Each structure stands twice: as C-alpha cells, then as structure tokens.
C-alpha cells in the first residue's frame, strides 16, 4: 500500500467492514480531538472500546476503558492509534499478539511509523497512517460537505441517510 495516497475504495472498504474499534490513547478530556472522533464513530454505529492505562476501570460515553489492548475480552476489528509516532511500534506489536488479530491498524492525523506499518502488513493487516477516521467517514458519506470541506468525491447518486436521524449520512454501497 502506498501510504502517501490511499484510494477512496481502500478507506471505504475498511470503514464499511470493521464493526469493533479499539481506540488507544483516547483522552477523557472532552475538548480533545480523540474524544470527538470516539463520540462520532460511536454515533455512526461502531462498537467503540476506549484504551488508556490511566483510565482503566472508568468509562466514557458508557464504554468501559481498558488499560491495554490485550485486556479487551472480545475480538477487535480495528485498532485506532491516538499516540505520537514514537509510541506506535509497541502498540502494533501488542496488536499482533491478539487472537484473532485485528484486520486494520489505523494511525491518526500526523501519526506515522513505516516500520510498524510494514510489520502489520506482513501479518496480513491493512494499515492506514496519518488520516482521521472521522474525517474520512465524513468525507466518503458526504457529511463533511456540510461544512464546506472539499470531499474530493463526485457522484450523480444521492447520499445515503443513516438510521432514523435527519442529519446523519451513511457510507452506502461501494458503487455509490
């Protein structure tokens, strides 16, 4: 995978297939970007599991914190990393020991570790670096267009409304 430019189909495929996301490094501070992303993805129907050793035993938006990935008692489809690049490698190494292994490792905006990405890819895991799943979901569902952002998508098909909300768009099918 060329980690400088991901095809939309790759990102859409990931966001359409994963159901359980463990977010490593989520802050309990409700003004931090990690909280925004956690809350947003939770509202889009993903099962969200917060991971932060300092918060173990507490919960956030009704979801129980775990200290580390290997403490989580259920299978995880995607690990979303909200830690600086130098902390990525041990998190990826830990993720590789999970059974079953996650399908996707995602590193947030500004976070990138090519060696860790290679390690994960060699284990058959898809990797995304230096992207935000909230922004990518918003972009591919067209929600982000409401705030004037260039979604870099064109379509003559209408966007898909998600659930019962009036202001909630879904990802639709790959052909949209």
């Amino acid at each position, binding site marked *: 995978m060329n980690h400088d430019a991901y095809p939309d189909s790759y990102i859409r495929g990931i966001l359409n297939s994963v159901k359980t996301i463990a977010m490593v490094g989520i802050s309990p501070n409700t*003004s931090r970007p990690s909280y925004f992303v956690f809350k947003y993805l939770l509202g889009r129907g993903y099962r969200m599991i917060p991971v932060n050793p300092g918060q173990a035993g507490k919960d956030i938006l009704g979801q129980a914190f775990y200290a580390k990935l290997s403490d989580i008692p259920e299978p995880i489809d995607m690990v979303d990393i909200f830690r600086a690049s130098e902390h990525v490698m041990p998190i990826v190494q830990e993720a590789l020991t999970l059974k079953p292994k996650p399908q996707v490792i995602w590193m947030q905006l500004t976070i990138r570790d090519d060696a860790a990405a290679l390690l994960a890819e060699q284990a058959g895991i898809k990797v995304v670096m230096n992207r935000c799943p909230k922004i990518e979901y918003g972009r591919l569902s067209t*929600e982000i267009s*409401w*705030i004037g952002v*260039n979604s870099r998508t064109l379509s003559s098909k209408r966007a*898909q409304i998600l659930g019962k*909300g009036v202001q909630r768009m879904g990802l639709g099918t790959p052909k949209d």
Partner: protein
Amino acid sequence: MADAERVPGFATLAIHAGAKPDPTTGARITPIYQTASFVFDDVDHAASLFGLQAFGNIYTRIGNPTCAVLEERVAALEGGTAGLAVASGHAAQVVVMHALMTPGDEFVASKKLYGGSINQFNHSYKNFGWNVVWADPDDIASFEKAMTPKTKAIFIESIANPGGVITDIEAVSKIARKAGVPLIVDNTLATPYLCKPFDYGANIVVHSLTKFLGGHGNSIGGMIVDGGNFNWTRKGQYPMLSEPRPEYSGIVLAETFGNFAFAIACRVLGLRDLGPALSPFNAFLIINGIETLPLRMQRHSDNALAVSEWLSKRPEVLWVSYPGLAGDKYNALAKKYVPKGCGAVFTFGLKGGHEAGVKLVSNVKLFSHLANIGDTRSLIIHPASTTHKQLSDAQKVQAGAGPDVVRLSIGLEDKDDIIADLEEGLTAA
C-alpha cells in the same frame, strides 16, 4: 465515479463538485435551502453540533447546505481543502483578517489592489487596530522590506483590478514562507480557470463571487478558500487556531480540524460572530454561474485580447494596459501565471484625459456605465470619478486609476459589436 483514482478535470469539477442529488428528494439541481434554521435529531445531536463534534447544519448564519455546495465547488476548483461562503468579497477579507490579526498587528499588502480594498485596509481596519503596510508588486524586494515581527500576513491580487497588473505570486510566496506568515491571494479577476494561486505557494485564496464566478451580475457574494498548506500550530502566532478557544470549551482548532482548520476558524469564530452570511438564494445563482465558468472565462479573455489590440491602434488612445498584449509590461508574467488568457478587465488611457473619459462613458450604447466587473455584459467606468474617487491623486495613479484612465470589463457579446460600440463612443467623444 466516487472512488475513481483519476482526478476530474476543471470543467467537470465546475459542474459537479459539491453537488450530489438531494438525499431526501432526489432533486438533481441543488435546492435553495431557504431556511434560517435546521431541526436536531435529539438533544445530544444538538450538543454535538454546537460543540463542533459532529458535521451538520444548525443555523444559516453559520452554514447552509446550498452555500455548502458553493463552498465545496470553489474549494475543488482552486485545489484547496475547504471553502467558506460569505456575503461579499469584502466580507471575505474581513473574516480572513479577523482570524489572523490581533490589535496592533500588521499585514503587508500590494498597493496595486481594487480601490475598495485599499479603502478597507487604510481606513476601516484602523478601528480594529490592524495596520496595513504597503508594498509595490513591481518591486518584489519591497515586500521583504515591509516585513516586521508584527507582520501576520501578506495580501495580493493575482490580476489586480483595474490596471491589468500581474503579481509574481511565487516570488511573494517565498517571502511569506521565509517569514512564516500566510500569503492571501485575491483571485477574483483571474478565477481558478485562469490561475490557481495554491500552485504557486499561496495559503489562502479570497474571492468576490460577485464577479466572474457568479458571472452574471446578479448576486453579491464572497469566498474564502483554505489551501490546507500552512502550519497554524506555532504557539502564540495565530491564537484563533493554536490556542484553546474559550468559546468552544477549550478546543484547539488547528489540532482538531487538520488541514482545513483555517476555514473552520473563519466559520465558527469569524462568520458566527461577525455575521456576514451569504443568502442561500445568492449561493444558488452563483453555483449556476460557475457551471459555465471555463467557457465564459475563455470567451471573456479572447474578446478582451481582441478589443485591447484594436484599442492600442486607435489615435484617441494613449496607452492600453492589458497583460495579454505582446510588449505589455506584464506579458512575461502573464505567460507564466495566466497562459490561457488574461481575463476581461483592463484599462486604457485617453489622450483627451479626464474629460474624454467622461464623454466616452456617456456615449457608449452597448457598454453599461456602472461600478462592477465580471458580467456577461460589457461594462465601462471612469475610475477616477467613481470607484477610486476617495483615493488621493497619488494613490489613484499608484492604483492605476489616474484621471485619463478608463476601465473596461469585456463581456461575452460578439467582439465586433463590442468594438463597434467603442468606435462610436470614441469618435463621438
């Protein structure tokens, strides 16, 4: 073609960018969402929207789905990350500066600008404590000399109104980058069809949509486009973006919104609090105009070149300032920055001076005598007695609006009719 790897061409973007069929009705043309406000799903949804945690619509002063189509359209055409539509070109300038400046700060601006911008910078901005320092686009070193530790931005026009001055965007952008400040380019006269300032290192583009983007002289509007290519996180330099915002319970916009944080800052701090929102109806008309932008700009430019060539051979005419003319002072810069054409607007000087200018604008029949540019119709004005009247004589000459100067905005009519009208006007004068 949502997931296609190919990058769509300019004409395709001009028609499609930002405008998918309406998700609830299937309407293919962007509806005019003529509503002040939008219902929330529930209390939590409302809180998420107000807290900037979700994307969505709250109140048309902050955002509107019709305006949003326009925003994405222009952002896509410029190659930027996001747009913000506002009530006028001047509002765009105020909202941009409001996000960058604190009282006592300075910005450096080209002295060859639209007269209204010169007024805004010299006078209105004084009330905010924002101080303009002028530089000369014909002497790039003057920008560097004007920079001080208080400088927060540089402002230029790609093609300057009215004189057909082409600014060396790349050279100015190097000075901005060295100083660590953003370069703002008013791209109104060129439009992204003729020139894309982000390709030459600009960081923010502003537009008067009133002109060529709308293109039909029917709506006032403005646009801010974020280039997504400036690092706003330097502590203390741009506090709207780099510091926790008390208005939003401590959010740091530059961290939360990645490479479109500047556009968000302009929306949630500038537009929300200063209030110059664009009407969705105007947005609708401007979106329609943009669909034909590439066709119109080419015709405007081709017609203007033909008219300027004709004028330059007339005995009544002292000089013609159109960068498309071979031998024009800006012809070399034009070849680099606006190779497809130099747009519709240019000036020329009459041997008969002020009096001959006034006579010409009174004698034409096809040209409309009015203060605007960028209409399908050909327009004429004598700037010294109108748009640039408030400036001192020295400023008028500096801005390319001396007493003998007539400004034309060449329309989309048949060029022979445009030329015939000028010929009648000149000989009657």
